[in-house]
């Protein structure tokens, strides 16, 4: 019997706000322990929460970006359980009236891991349905010391958005693709930096397996607190395999909550008691409900960006780019914006895209801000390359100079004598000289060795100090050698 996995995700994302969700403490990673706290986020007697408008708007915006329905009225609830990293021993969350319901995320090919991009699952264009998106407060950070634990409450009360998917996923690669896509959308909306190192994306996964073709769900197990996209893939691979092994050898899966040890590549059952799931949710009497219609929704709509998939197809259609070029540009919205500005000054956007994706990105790695080049110069450079005035190596050279001191690229090329020689008469003279000086190569060529033309080309390039248009030389040499 073959089995398939049924996977659902709960994705927790830290929002990019200046302050915490219910108090004015700074929402900041890496500060001195317990230096970003106040009576509210320490849960001192008498302190009261007041919701941060920006966090609400960002959650609504996320819902809009993912096609959710924004509820006209939402409320906050208390989720009750005791844990030392949670100051009030209840978490303010949203239970039955979240800000966003439903929604959908489609999985583009390039969101899949590289080694799976050619597989049918990557090409299927699957759409994953969302259950809901809600807003809640994060807990503090605990450190395990020798005989006790130490707690830093700087993170306590920072805004955390939870995106819950339907159990629509069937493979670890789909889960990977979903998270990659979600990350890109969130960055587009400037809702979160989704920096894994800082734990800005954490994920709980629910997994069950069932024989292919059956409808009923198997017993699910939950793996909590996965903190990177690749860890999700690894943990799922491991868990699916062990569930299938268990079931196919006649065993039964027991409902359980697990923790993933990424270093050891195994899951470990968590020692949380069953009664911890009796969360006793009820509406938080300290907080008024939230009405999203009006200002909050309008503000979220105003901030709505062009979405990655829309941008990709527009880049393809407008500039004739390949799927790959469009995806790489779209994955970096500031770069895509820059490209589009530069494209206004060129006749050949495809050359511009090549320059951007090859030379420009390479340069960007060691120079802080290549975007300081005025986009029109960058466009003009693309023209110089595409019309043959500069070859690609020369183009790269001019680009390097442009970054240092922006000037019209034509000026730089002339000044440095970099202009490519495309004048046929001039080139023909060089070619005749090459033929006269290399009788052996000429003989080889005429004897059927097509590659022999390369040494003639090399001669011309050397004579012209690399300024000759290689394409033109090739053509000229060929026709001269074929002359009777």
């Amino acid at each position, binding site marked *: 019997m073959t089995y398939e996995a049924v996977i659902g995700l709960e994705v927790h994302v830290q929002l990019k706000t200046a302050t915490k969700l219910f108090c004015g403490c700074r929402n900041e990673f890496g500060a001195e322990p317990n230096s970003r706290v106040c009576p509210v986020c320490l849960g001192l007697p008498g302190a009261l929460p007041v919701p941060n408008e920006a966090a609400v708007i960002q959650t609504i915006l996320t819902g809009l970006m993912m096609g959710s329905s924004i509820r006209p009225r939402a409320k906050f609830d208390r989720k009750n359980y005791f844990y*030392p990293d949670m100051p009030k021993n209840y978490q303010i969350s949203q239970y039955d009236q979240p800000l966003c319901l439903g929604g959908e995320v489609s999985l583009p090919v390039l969101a899949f891991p590289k080694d799976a991009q050619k597989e049918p699952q990557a090409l299927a264009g699957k759409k994953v349905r969302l259950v809901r998106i809600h807003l809640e407060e994060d807990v503090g950070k605990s450190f395990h010391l020798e005989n006790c634990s130490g707690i830093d409450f700087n993170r306590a009360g920072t805004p955390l958005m939870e995106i819950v998917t339907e159990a629509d996923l069937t493979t670890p690669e789909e889960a990977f693709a979903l998270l990659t896509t979600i990350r890109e959308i969130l960055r587009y909306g400037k809702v979160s930096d989704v920096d894994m190192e800082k734990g800005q994306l954490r994920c709980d996964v629910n997994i069950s397996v069932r024989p292919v073709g059956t409808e009923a769900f198997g017993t699910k197990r939950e793996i909590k607190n996965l903190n990177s996209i690749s860890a999700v893939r690894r943990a799922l691979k491991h868990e699916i395999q062990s569930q299938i092994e268990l079931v196919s050898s006649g065993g039964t899966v027991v409902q359980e909550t697990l923790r993933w040890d990424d270093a050891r590549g195994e899951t470990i059952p968590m020692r949380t008691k069953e009664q911890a799931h009796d969360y006793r949710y009820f509406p938080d009497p300290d907080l008024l409900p939230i009405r999203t219609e009006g200002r909050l929704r309008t503000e979220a709509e105003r901030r709505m960006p062009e979405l990655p998939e829309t941008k990709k197809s527009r880049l393809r259609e407008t500039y004739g780019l390949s799927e790959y070029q469009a995806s790489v540009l779209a994955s970096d919205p500031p770069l895509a914006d820059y490209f589009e500005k530069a494209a206004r000054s060129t006749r050949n956007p495809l050359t511009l895209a090549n320059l951007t994706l090859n030379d420009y990105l390479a340069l960007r790695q060691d120079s802080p801000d290549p975007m300081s080049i005025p986009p029109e110069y960058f466009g003009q450079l693309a023209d110089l390359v595409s019309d043959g005035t500069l070859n690609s190596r020369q183009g790269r050279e001019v680009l390097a100079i442009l970054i240092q001191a922006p000037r019209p690229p034509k000026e730089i090329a002339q000044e440095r004598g970099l202009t490519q020689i495309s004048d046929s008469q001039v080139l023909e003279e060089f070619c005749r000289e090459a033929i006269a000086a290399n009788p052996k190569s000429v003989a080889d060529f005429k004897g059927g060795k097509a590659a022999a033309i390369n040494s003639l080309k090399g001669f011309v390039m050397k004579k012209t100090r690399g300024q000759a248009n290689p394409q033109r030389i090739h053509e000229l040499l060929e026709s001269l050698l074929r002359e009777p």
Partner: protein
Amino acid sequence: MSIAFATIHELRKQLLAKEVHPKEVVESLLDRISSVDSRIKAYNYLHPERALESAEKADVSLPLGGIPIAVKDLISVRGEPCTCSSRLLEGYIAPYDATVIERLRAAGAILLGRTNMDEFAMGSSTENSAWGVTRNPWDLSRVPGGSSGGSAAAVAAQEAIAALGSDTGGSIRQPAAFCGCVGLKPTYGRVSRYGLTAFASSLDQIGPLTKTVADAGLLLEIIAGADPRDNTCEPEPAPSFSTKLGEEIRGMTLGVPKEYFVSGMDPEVEAAMQKAIAHLEGLGAILREISLPHTPYSIATYYLVATAEASANLARFDGMRYGRRAPGCNDLLETYGRTRDEGFGREVKRRILLGTYSLSSGYYDAYYLRAQKVRMRIREDFLTAFRDCQAIVTPTSPMPAFRLGERTEDPLQMYLADIFTIAVNLAGLCAISLPCGFTQAGLPIGLQIIGPMRKEETVLQVGYAYEQSTSWHTLRPPLG
């Protein structure tokens, strides 16, 4: 007569005329406290040096300049303990001021000390305190009421000029009635709860306990008004509540709920109430019978809503970040369990259990949600009633102060004593309690005047008219 016996209004005049110095006021109160508080135990905590220091610098031109105010021990004052009369908060020093404390300070008030209460405001007798019981100044064998019993007893015993209390189901009004002083529960949302240790967030309000109605109005004016730190606080600035003081009540319609005179009322309370009604009629008010049909459900509703909220509000008291942690525990669960077992008194545990149970899996709809819906019915009762009257008059409590220890282990009997005050909190209304007579044994009886939401000036107007035409408020307990 001792300065300590003065009202805020009287003291203001004397201070402005420089007949007394703020320091003398504080000294006089400290004298009074040292001579009577060993019998009453109204205060948990005093800070004489700091009070004298503030008196030295007091600016008497401010609205409460140089006036000492006592504060119930569950309101946060920067640098001071805030024990809520619980062992669990032993050693805790609040690092911030409640909004009402900021406002008292800005108005020039002197913070004298912290008054005793039922632990976490849970109780009607101030017997549930980790620091000992407070006694009723009129009869030391009786309770002062609760949970703001320390504040009421301090004002009645002339150990405070005025005090702040908090009222979740009658915790200002009932002790005011038992001790023969004035207590005002403002409309929900009128006074910021920021810094008030929460018992039941949707019911709690801070309010004044004073010697006169005019003082209650003045103190309320200082503490009320919008606060961006409390999401449930009304965004409008507080109006002047005292504008109608002295306006006559002739022609005003006052409702008397028929459901409040049916069962279990002490005959002396009932008689005093009838006299008070006759007196108000004598002042020209039109008394009319009204109906609040959901009255029989108010106690059940209250105990479900309040305990559910409390079970979550009190979860934070776990000995992890502040307060007393049980020593010598082996693991986390034992630490939680023993800290909370040793830290909380019986009444608090009882209510946490009830609240936890009613929210637990499978019971939410039957208990908490239903109670919230019945609560809306109770609110509708009042909205309907207020179409026919401008205020409602009732006894504050069905009985006068009871004896210490009389009701501690019968929670239901204890809860039933709050029958007349609870509905006001459930409906979010404002109400005042003021003295309207004494029993033969010399125990004060309280009259409650309930107003619609945001109509504090009306209850103050009616209360003032009654007070100024009677002499109950001039009587003092026999403490020597």
